[in-house]
């Protein structure tokens, strides 16, 4: 798989199942993540991402199955496991009555950072996360973006080998999203990262490998590039042109070599034709030739790239992928 796995994997999940009463949140999930990998954990809302991450951190117990982090069993050695993990929970809950410095020192001490390294570590993560100016501010008065950074600083403060980040960019503005992604990429050199999101460009921008979860099941686990190629079978071409009202460009294009289907719809006086073609076909020059023969004005011929989104929708059967539809159970 081209993983950077050396020896023992960082995360080993085997046959993990988690039920809430009768509802199955995670269903027989198995995967491994090697040291140094950056893995995107993808899936529609309610797919079981947060549940899985909470189990990895020992906040929830598994109904059945085993989880090992850096060789420690989550169930038998929860404290040992947590020492290796820096966890950023969803929505980033922090003690809003504390000051940033005070909170980071508290968390560092709680996570066993020795007193002599305290100042150095807190200053280092503040620098890393862009918090140097807000050390004296009370967390409850910070903006969402800053809260997220404090949460990230907290996750980093004890220099964990593994970072588990649950929706690290949710609720941020575009600039902050870019900054957070850059920060995560810069962390990749020294940490193994598991990052959940339902925003696809995020995964394409940051991760080298993707796990796709749907209704508690693992539906794909592969590198970002290979997943994109999964759908390389079908070639999609879109053409926009102007024809006489009675003419139907769809039927004219449908007979071209390699074209399976062609459907036309109207956009004002322009028509947009969508073609699905055989693998490896490229009907673009034929489209131009036909348009010239008929005397049609052609303004665009475009071959679509395979996007991860298509793969995602195909794999998760498009169900429940719109945001905020099935709120993930946030029990604690």
């Amino acid at each position: 798989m081209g993983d950077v796995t050396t020896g023992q994997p960082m995360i080993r999940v085997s046959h993990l199942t988690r039920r809430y009463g009768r509802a199955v949140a995670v269903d027989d999930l198995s995967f491994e993540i090697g040291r140094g990998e950056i893995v995107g954990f993808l899936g529609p809302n309610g797919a079981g991402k947060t549940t899985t991450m909470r189990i990895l951190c020992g906040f929830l117990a598994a109904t059945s199955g085993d989880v090992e982090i850096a060789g420690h069993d989550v169930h038998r050695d929860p404290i040992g496991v947590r020492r290796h993990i820096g966890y950023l929970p969803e929505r980033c809950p922090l003690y809003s009555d504390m000051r940033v410095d005070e909170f980071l020192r508290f968390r560092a001490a709680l996570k066993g950072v020795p007193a002599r390294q305290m100042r150095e570590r807190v200053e280092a993560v503040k620098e890393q996360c862009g918090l140097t100016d807000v050390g004296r501010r009370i967390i409850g008065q910070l903006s969402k973006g800053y809260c997220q950074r404090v949460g990230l600083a907290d996750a980093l403060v004890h220099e964990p080998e593994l970072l588990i980040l649950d929706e690290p960019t949710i609720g941020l503005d575009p600039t902050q999203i870019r900054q957070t992604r850059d920060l995560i990429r810069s962390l990749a050199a020294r940490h193994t990262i598991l990052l959940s999101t339902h925003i696809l460009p995020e995964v394409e921008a940051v991760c080298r490998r993707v796990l796709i979860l749907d209704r508690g099941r693992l539906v794909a686990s592969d590198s970002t590039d290979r997943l994109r190629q999964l759908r390389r079978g079908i070639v999609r071409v879109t053409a926009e042109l102007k024809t006489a009202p009675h003419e139907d460009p769809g039927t004219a294009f449908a007979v071209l070599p390699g074209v399976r289907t062609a459907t036309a719809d109207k956009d004002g006086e322009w028509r947009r034709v969508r073609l699905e073609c055989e693998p490896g076909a490229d009907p673009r020059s034929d489209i131009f030739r036909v348009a010239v023969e008929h005397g049609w004005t052609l303004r665009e011929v475009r071959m679509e790239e395979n996007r991860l989104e298509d793969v995602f929708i195909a794999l998760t059967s498009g169900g429940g992928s719109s945001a905020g539809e099935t709120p993930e159970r946030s029990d604690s």
Partner: protein
Amino acid sequence: MRSFGVLLRRELGAIFLSPMAWTALTFFLAVMGTSFWMLLDLLSRGAERTEGGEVIGQLLGSIFFWLALLIVAPVITMRTIAEERRSGTFEMLMTAPVRDGTVVLAKYTAALLFYAVLWLPTLIYPLTLRLLRPFGAPLDGGALAAGYLGVMLIGAAAIAAGVFTSSITRSQVTAALGAFAIICVFFLAGFLPYIPHGETVARTAHYASGVSHLLDFARGVVDTRPIAFYLINTAWLLWATVRMTEARRWK
């Protein structure tokens, strides 16, 4: 045990920086001050019962103590765990390398320390009595210490009950009402020995009667049975609280 110290400091900070704490202190001192004022009034009118022990019983073991405890213990403890679960900070806390027991114990200890701080200003009442000497003999120091011991023991159990109810719900109001109900039932059951029910009932009820325990302590009677009673109740309530926080993983 470093994490216990770290957590305790955080919890104390959270209590002492909250307006709730100062409201509770004001309420508590208003109630205990009224109690003391009524006691002084009683003494100045030359009441019969001016024996030292009785005075301490009036001071520490009256209905005012129970009124204060019924309000103050739920208010101190209601946010301890319920609020962390409601706001989600519990997830952050419990994914740090700390044991559930350490977290519960730190929260409990902080609440108990605050309860002790509430009582500190009331030391001025016996001090005043000692200086004024409204009755013949000086105030019995031993009985006073025993009275405060009783106050702390009952408080320790009441606060354990409050931390427990805070662990079973996300709502602070529910937690407070739960603790209030437990302490209230315990307080009312304390009157059982004083109601004619027959010898057996009265003697049995005496073992669990906070009202009579406290009056005994205030007379200087330090009996190991009530001490064990409160320590055991505190212990199992805290144990149940730890089990509740552990059970949350399985829900």
